[in-house]
């Protein structure tokens, strides 16, 4: 009997558990001490606490997770994204413990998850890579690369991702400091201080191909454009990319399949490319895991990528290529303040109502009353809209974002709405630097909002203290 432990929390754990229920597979959640009331526990059949020195460490505790699997009789582990998902030691440890790892094998993960070796494989396959792209152990060697390819350059962690250990460097003067800062971040985030230096392509689109690998062969499931990023973290993703022609799309998908097959890649992965302003494109890196933005592909191709991952890991065949239809856009709801440099925010979710609409999907990982803690990723949930064309997907997503009620923690909700309504988004003019160059200031609250707040703040002549809304903890209302 298959029983799957999900070594994760938040929206992705919830999302995986839902598919496991649909597949009739029993499931186990793990949690840190502080997460014992978190929503992902409700979605699983069982839950086990895993020790950790701080709350995030529980989800990084390989030994503790394997023990939890042993205790519950789990036969397989899904890592989700983040945490241990791209640590090659995890699939190895699972293998030694006779557990099925739902993801690439340790060897495949190392071959493509490591930026340096992935780039070497790409070059062997004749796939273009970003100029420069050398490992540098000092600011001096980085300078040598810069002299050859010209500024601006990117300095980034060889063993990392998610925007940490990454710096854009404009000139030689700022290189030493940027190099040192990126390396410090890489060492603290990934315990790996190896740095890569490459030419910074500008303006560029970030286009990635979803693949499912079966070892000898891989199948591509279209692209996702994820150019809209802040601090190198994606916020809005869509498929298809508004900047990709049919022939370009086919070449990228072909390159991704070829690369995955060359590395003997197994399970789900994403091959990332940069698309330059002149239509030139370059291999960037492989994310050897399920990605946050995978629902965009699911909406367009009618596949369940988690189900496909489970089937593949249990020895099933590669699914047949699917025909895409329409357009899908995802927005990430983050606990952050886009008006103050996307500062992560914490607080208690005082009110929550997700939107409902045809072809609108919500992947949420929070509930009313929950504390949003400072130790984890600020992602609270995702809203994904499908439409028969881009404009309809955009309108649905906007409608969903306007209907969303999420109070108690500051979020980027209004920022997402303004971005989806901006001229550059409507025109599909989205580049990796677009959000940086369009600074956003939160609009003033409308008259209606102020009146609503005022009537709640000072109700006319309260008769007793119980009439004061300030005492009405835990209840909220719509309008009046």
């Amino acid at each position, binding site marked *: 009997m298959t029983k799957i432990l999900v070594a994760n929390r938040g929206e992705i754990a919830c999302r995986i558990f839902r598919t496991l229920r649909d597949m009739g597979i029993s499931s186990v959640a793990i949690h840190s001490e502080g997460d014992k009331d978190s929503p992902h526990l409700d979605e699983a059949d069982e839950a086990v606490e895993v020790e950790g020195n701080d709350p995030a460490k529980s989800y990084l505790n390989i030994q503790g997770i394997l023990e939890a699997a042993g205790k519950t009789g789990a036969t397989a582990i899904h890592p989700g994204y983040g945490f241990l998902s791209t640590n090659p030691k995890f699939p190895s440890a699972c293998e030694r413990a006779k557990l099925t790892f739902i993801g690439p094998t340790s060897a495949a993960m190392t071959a493509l998850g490591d930026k340096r070796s992935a780039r070497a494989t790409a070059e062997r396959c004749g796939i273009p890579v970003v100029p420069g792209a050398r490992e540098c152990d000092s600011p001096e060697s980085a300078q040598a690369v810069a002299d050859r390819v010209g500024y601006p350059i990117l300095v980034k962690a060889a063993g990392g991702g998610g925007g940490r250990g990454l710096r854009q460097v404009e000139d030689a003067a700022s290189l030493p400091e940027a190099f040192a800062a990126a390396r410090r971040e890489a060492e603290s985030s990934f315990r790996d201080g190896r740095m890569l230096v490459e030419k910074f392509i500008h303006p560029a689109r970030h286009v990635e191909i979803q693949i499912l690998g079966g070892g000898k062969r891989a199948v591509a499931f279209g692209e996702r454009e994820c150019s809209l990023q802040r601090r190198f973290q994606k916020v809005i993703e869509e498929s298809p990319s508004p900047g990709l022609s049919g022939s370009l799309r086919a070449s990228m998908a072909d390159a991704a399949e070829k690369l995955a097959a060359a590395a003997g890649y197994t399970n789900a992965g994403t091959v990332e490319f940069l698309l330059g302003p002149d239509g030139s494109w370059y291999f960037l890196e492989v994310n050897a895991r399920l990605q946050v933005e995978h629902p965009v592909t699911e909406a367009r191709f009618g596949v369940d990528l988690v189900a496909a991952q489970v089937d593949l890991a249990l020895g099933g065949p590669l699914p047949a290529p699917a025909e895409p239809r329409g357009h899908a856009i995802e927005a990430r709801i983050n606990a952050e303040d886009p008006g103050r440099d996307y500062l992560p925010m914490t607080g208690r979710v*005082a009110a929550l109502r997700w939107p409902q609409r045809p072809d609108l999907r919500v992947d949420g990982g929070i509930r009313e009353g929950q504390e949003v803690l400072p130790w984890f990723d600020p992602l609270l949930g995702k809203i994904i809209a499908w439409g028969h064309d881009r404009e309809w997907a955009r309108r649905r997503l906007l409608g969903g974002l306007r209907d969303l009620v999420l109070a108690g923690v500051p979020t980027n909700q209004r920022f997402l709405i303004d971005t989806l309504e901006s001229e550059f988004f409507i025109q599909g003019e989205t580049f990796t630097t677009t959000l940086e160059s369009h600074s956003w200031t939160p609009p003033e609250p409308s008259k209606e909002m102020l009146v609503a707040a005022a009537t709640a703040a000072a109700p006319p002549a309260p008769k007793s203290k119980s009439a004061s809304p300030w005492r009405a903890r835990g209840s909220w209302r719509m309008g009046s």
Partner: protein
Amino acid sequence: MKRVVRLKCRGRVHNVEVDGTEKVPRRAAIVPVPGGVWVSLDGHCEFFEPVLGSVPLPSRAADPEVRAPMTGRIVAIRVKPGDAVREGDVLVVLEAMKMEYRVAAPAAGTVATVRVSERDRVEIGTVLVTMSPP
């Protein structure tokens, strides 16, 4: 009756005139929490903190001093030394700009001293009442 409610939002104070006849859209979510209110309307969600008001300061049981939340005149004193009060009980009523504000106990306790008298003018931050734990 026309009133002005002062609300702080993202560091800016807004003076909102209300007379009780205003209609708030039914789709607005109004979420009172300790210390203020969240309002979410059409995807715009903000936190509003009353600058002056009948609102008890955020619960700080350790702080034995209850201070004037605004500059004004004392119109009523509802407690005397030795009174046991519960959190939220009105201690003093202040008036300013023709509006009354009730200053409430931030936590349960016993009134130690009352530092003001009726009709006194007080500045914002003036200690009105001191309290000791229950």
